[in-house]
């Protein structure tokens, strides 16, 4: 256990880190913009060149806000799923919800091509919104199935296994669609699968942010049942909670956050899995009263950091965000698990 002082200090440092990373995301990019201009644009001052303003308002700001929001959403989702299933490997990809999103997109992008109807490419705006809607619908369909199963079955491990199986099933359908589609459509689909924070408008990014924050606040209401779940489902019942109902609520919240993020950015790997582990290791606690704010802050910081790294090559094409989150996330998970092991053996 760490002292309260230590925890308070971390909760002061992390927001500063987030602001710093956020500003770096606004400032750094293929076109160089001065700190002063970046700052003035954010404060809506007029003495900034038009081109800098457009780059920041239309590109960098929505990208940074989306990265931050989706980072928060996926991290909360990962935490809720790991607690619900008392499984450290649970994360956004396990319940097949991201796979459901990818099926939705595959149906629009690939099947559209097979049927001779070009949805993407002809009209950029319609194409993008069609992908967002398809992804969201696909994710929600799988989510509905999972929640239904969870209400029926109750047993967490069974729900988890069924979720993984649905994921395989859906991926198989996506694979079949890929096999029959043209290389052009396939390319568009693969691009979506690599993930990107740069596909949102400023309005969309702010909407994602507001919804994510609203759901985060709702989650705070469930600190008690979440903590009770850590002792296992039977002890959670004995602490006075309706475990089946709570389990469905947690799956619903995390599923919605995953659906929201994936719809606008494509599947983002490792953030949801890694951030709860990082939070537990840094704060040395499993208490959700600390962990929830912790994953929100760490998720925001890590995703902003990853987005910054993806811009490092410096020219127009940035690195695919999934490559960066995986390269950063996987070593972190390995490190955390090894560290946790040596600690428990000591």
């Amino acid at each position, binding site marked *: 256990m760490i002292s309260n002082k230590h925890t308070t200090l971390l909760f002061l440092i992390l927001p500063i880190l987030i602001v710093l990373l956020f500003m770096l995301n606004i400032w750094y990019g293929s076109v160089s913009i001065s700190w002063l201009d970046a700052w003035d644009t954010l404060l809506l001052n007029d003495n900034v060149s038009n081109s800098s303003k457009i780059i920041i308002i239309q590109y960098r700001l929505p990208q940074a806000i989306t990265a931050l929001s989706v980072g928060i959403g996926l991290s909360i989702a990962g935490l809720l799923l790991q607690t619900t299933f008392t499984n450290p490997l649970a994360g956004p990809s396990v319940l097949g919800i991201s796979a459901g999103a990818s099926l939705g997109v595959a149906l629009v992008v690939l099947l559209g091509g097979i049927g001779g109807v070009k949805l993407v490419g002809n009209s950029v705006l319609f194409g993008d919104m069609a992908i967002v809607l398809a992804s969201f619908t696909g994710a929600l369909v799988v989510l509905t199935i999972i929640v239904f199963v969870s209400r029926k079955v109750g047993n967490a491990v069974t729900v988890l296994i069924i979720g993984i199986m649905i994921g395989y099933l859906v991926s198989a359908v996506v694979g079949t669609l890929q096999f029959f589609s043209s290389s052009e459509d396939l390319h568009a689909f693969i691009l979506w699968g690599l993930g990107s924070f740069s596909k949102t408008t400023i309005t969309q990014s702010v909407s994602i942010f507001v919804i994510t924050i609203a759901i985060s606040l709702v989650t705070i*209401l469930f600190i008690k049942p979440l903590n009770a779940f850590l002792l296992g489902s039977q002890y959670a019942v004995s602490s006075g909670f309706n475990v089946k109902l709570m389990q469905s609520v947690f799956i619903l919240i995390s599923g919605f956050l995953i659906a929201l993020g994936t719809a606008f950015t494509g599947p983002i790997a490792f953030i949801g899995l890694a951030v709860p582990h990082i939070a537990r290791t840094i704060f040395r606690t499993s208490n959700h009263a600390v962990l929830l704010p912790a994953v929100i802050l760490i998720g925001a910081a890590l995703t902003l950091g990853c987005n910054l790294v993806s811009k490092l090559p410096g020219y127009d094409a940035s690195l695919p965000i999934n490559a960066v989150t995986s390269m950063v996330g996987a070593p972190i998970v390995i490190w955390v698990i090894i560290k946790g092991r040596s600690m428990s053996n000591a």
Partner: protein
Amino acid sequence: MHKTDNILLKIHNLTTGYSLSRSKKVALHQNVNSEVGKGEFIALLGPNGAGKSTLLKTLLGIIPSLDGNIYYNGDNLHEMSKKEIATLVAVVLTDKIEDRYLTSYDIVGTGRYPYGSFIGKLTDVDKEKISNAFKLVDAEELITKVFYSLSDGEKQKVLLARAIAQDTPLIFLDEPTAFIDSPGKVIIMNLINDLVLVHNKTILLTTHDTELALEYATKLWLLGKENYFEEGAPKTMVEAGMINKLFIRKGIIFNVKSKRFEMG
């Protein structure tokens, strides 16, 4: 000791068991009837697989009953919320707690969840109940320790403290002395006995430590295979040879005089 006007738990024509499918149900015990009064210390004895844990969890509403009714203070278990049940019965189970960061204090704190604020901030009353619970089980030095790092005996003390902090008239324990060394078993049983004698709690526990249970229990529930359920005073049941009948193993008998299992 047994006062009929002080019935905390009433079991009426209860059938315990499990469902294999919607239509296929396996009953372990049928038409079980009993009453549990304030201040009783009941030991639930029986061989492995007799259905002791199933009965205990059915009474808690963790496993659904196949038939019959369970009443707490006259209220039907079916119609009670999990929260209401949690203010009447606390439990110590055999489930392993795998979390690596929760402290003993965090664990005992969950015993206060049926009460108080919505988001889980502990009130002064909660804090007092928690520290009293640690005092009662003589485990104050464990308060800040990580639960996962404790020995089995220490873990059992903390879980007992959790049940005490829950401040319920009834405490159910599933094999509280399993995996604990012999002096540890006696310590735990003494603590539980103090809860009955000093703090007026009512205890129902399952155990395989028959000899130890006979020293403390005020009543026995004997549970065997093939729908066998009998209750009574320990002394009467021992002398009637009922313990012997319950644990039929070739070459082993329960010596009524020494109250021990011996090679026959």
